[in-house]
């Protein structure tokens, strides 16, 4: 019998950086569940709650031991209305719920604060003149590196497209949030669909946008899950949030830009008659792309599309990671989903 656990520990009792990280991770997950349960209990009890749902941001590992809690919403939150009901079409709900469950079985390697989220897509962009006809250019490769800096920063990453590098520069500096989502920020989002939609709404300026709030939210979620890296739990929560937005339906045209099979989740904007489609691979629950269309008398016209082909974590901006998660095998065939 050799129970290694019972060997006397070395005298130094401080946790290693990896141990600290695991402790914070476990605590964060448990706290989230705890607060959700508390919040449900409060709402059930008296329908008026001022409990704020804390998000947890993992501070820069190895330098700061403090677990930083970020409160979603203001301390004096207004009373919570009844929870948003599920209003998406039944087929859309089925697809999104199934994708969420499938995602629970996947694993994503989290970047550290000094790394970059890397996403490579094949893209079709409207290169026609503004207010003129849509002129879809050729398919081209688009790569993006996203800074994971947790503080406010103007140096936010890089886009490599059309044969050029375009630094993403945020002027006076942008804090982490919906407009500059880092992996850690996405991990901190509440998993309760209501709280999640409240958080997104609070960060998106809908007052100067002719689109309805619902479309703004839908499009924001499409952006977050298509060109970014998030913990599977967060992507699942975002899918579930979509089921609470009215007008969300399944799109019949079930192939992405590269012809890979998927399921489309879509919403049509009433004012501009534009339609965004989120394309999900049902075997993994992952988002594999998006399509943007306009309604015209002649039918729907595509004015943009992306197909995600790789996601990963890069150590250096502008350098492709050694082993990104490739979603397309050589020759364009879809990689088989893990068993």
């Amino acid at each position, binding site marked *: 019998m050799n*129970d290694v*656990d019972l060997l006397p*520990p070395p005298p130094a009792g*401080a946790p290693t950086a990896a*141990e600290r990280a695991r402790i914070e991770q*476990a605590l964060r997950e448990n706290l989230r569940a*705890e607060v959700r349960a508390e919040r449900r209990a409060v709402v059930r009890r008296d329908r008026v709650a001022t409990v704020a749902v804390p998000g947890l941001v993992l501070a820069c590992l190895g330098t700061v031991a*403090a677990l930083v*809690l970020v409160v979603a919403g203001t301390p004096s939150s207004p009373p919570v209305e009844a929870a948003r009901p599920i209003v998406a079409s039944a087929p859309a709900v089925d697809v999104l719920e199934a994708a969420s469950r499938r995602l629970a079985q996947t694993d994503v390697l989290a970047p550290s604060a000094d790394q970059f989220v890397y996403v490579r897509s094949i893209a079709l962009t409207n290169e026609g003149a503004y207010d003129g006809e849509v002129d879809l250019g050729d398919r081209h490769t688009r790569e993006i590196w996203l800074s994971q800096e947790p503080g406010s920063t103007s140096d936010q990453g890089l886009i490599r497209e059309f044969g050029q590098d375009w630094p993403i520069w945020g002027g006076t500096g942008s804090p982490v949030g919906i407009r500059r989502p880092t992996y850690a920020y996405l991990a901190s989002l509440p998993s309760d669909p209501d709280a999640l939609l409240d958080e997104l709404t609070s960060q998106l300026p809908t007052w100067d946008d002719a689109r309805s709030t619902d479309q703004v939210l839908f499009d924001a979620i499409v952006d977050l899950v298509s060109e970014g890296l998030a913990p599977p739990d967060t992507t699942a929560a975002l899918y579930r949030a979509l089921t609470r937005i009215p007008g969300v339906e399944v799109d019949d045209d079930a192939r992405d830009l590269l012809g890979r099979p998927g399921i489309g989740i879509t919403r049509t904007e009433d004012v501009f008659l534009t339609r965004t489609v989120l394309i999900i691979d049902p075997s993994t629950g992952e988002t594999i792309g998006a399509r943007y269309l306009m309604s015209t008398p002649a039918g729907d016209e595509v004015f943009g599309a992306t197909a995600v082909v790789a996601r990963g974590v890069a150590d250096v901006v502008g350098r492709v990671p050694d082993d990104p998660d490739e979603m397309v095998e050589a020759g364009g065939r879809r990689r088989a989903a893990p068993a």
Partner: protein
Amino acid sequence: MADLSVRQQRALLRAGDHDVFSQLFGAHSDEVFAAALRLTGSRASAEDVTSETFLVAWRRRGDVEPSDVPLRGWLLAIAAHHAMNVTRGRRRRLAFLGSDRARPGVVADFADEAVGRLDDARRLERTRTALDALTRRELEVVSLCVWSELSYQEAADALGIPVGTVRSRLNRARERLRVLVADPDVAPPLSPAPAHPHSTNRGPR
């Protein structure tokens, strides 16, 4: 934030203030880990106990009373409780398998600095063996007062018992170990029967 008085910290924590909670974590998670490690002898268990301790602290924030006693003791008491739960299960299993850890050998009083002169592994092994001889209540005060260096008052506040009880438990712990030092052949019982000191809750003494 660091300028908050203990009284203010307690009030804020009780009210569910997230900043104060995260400050507490930042200030004390390392020593909670160390305390759990000493009690469980396992780094993996110490990790579990540490995150569990702060989760429990959040859940029980409403129990925090107004006072000037630092919250550190409260956290360490929660940690000790959970760490001893971990080892209790393990000890029972070990005893059942007929572990030969009964003999303490020559054990110096852990409060005696002479203990530090033995090489680390042997010292800890012997300390752990000696600890097997203590009751759960005695081990609790040893962990808080001797290892984590809480004052009697802080430990009493954290455990919700009178200061006098803390003293008497600590004295009893020391006496038990002196007995072991005097007669190295005295082996602490390790049977899984109810007479096992760790499975018996004899109540406050």
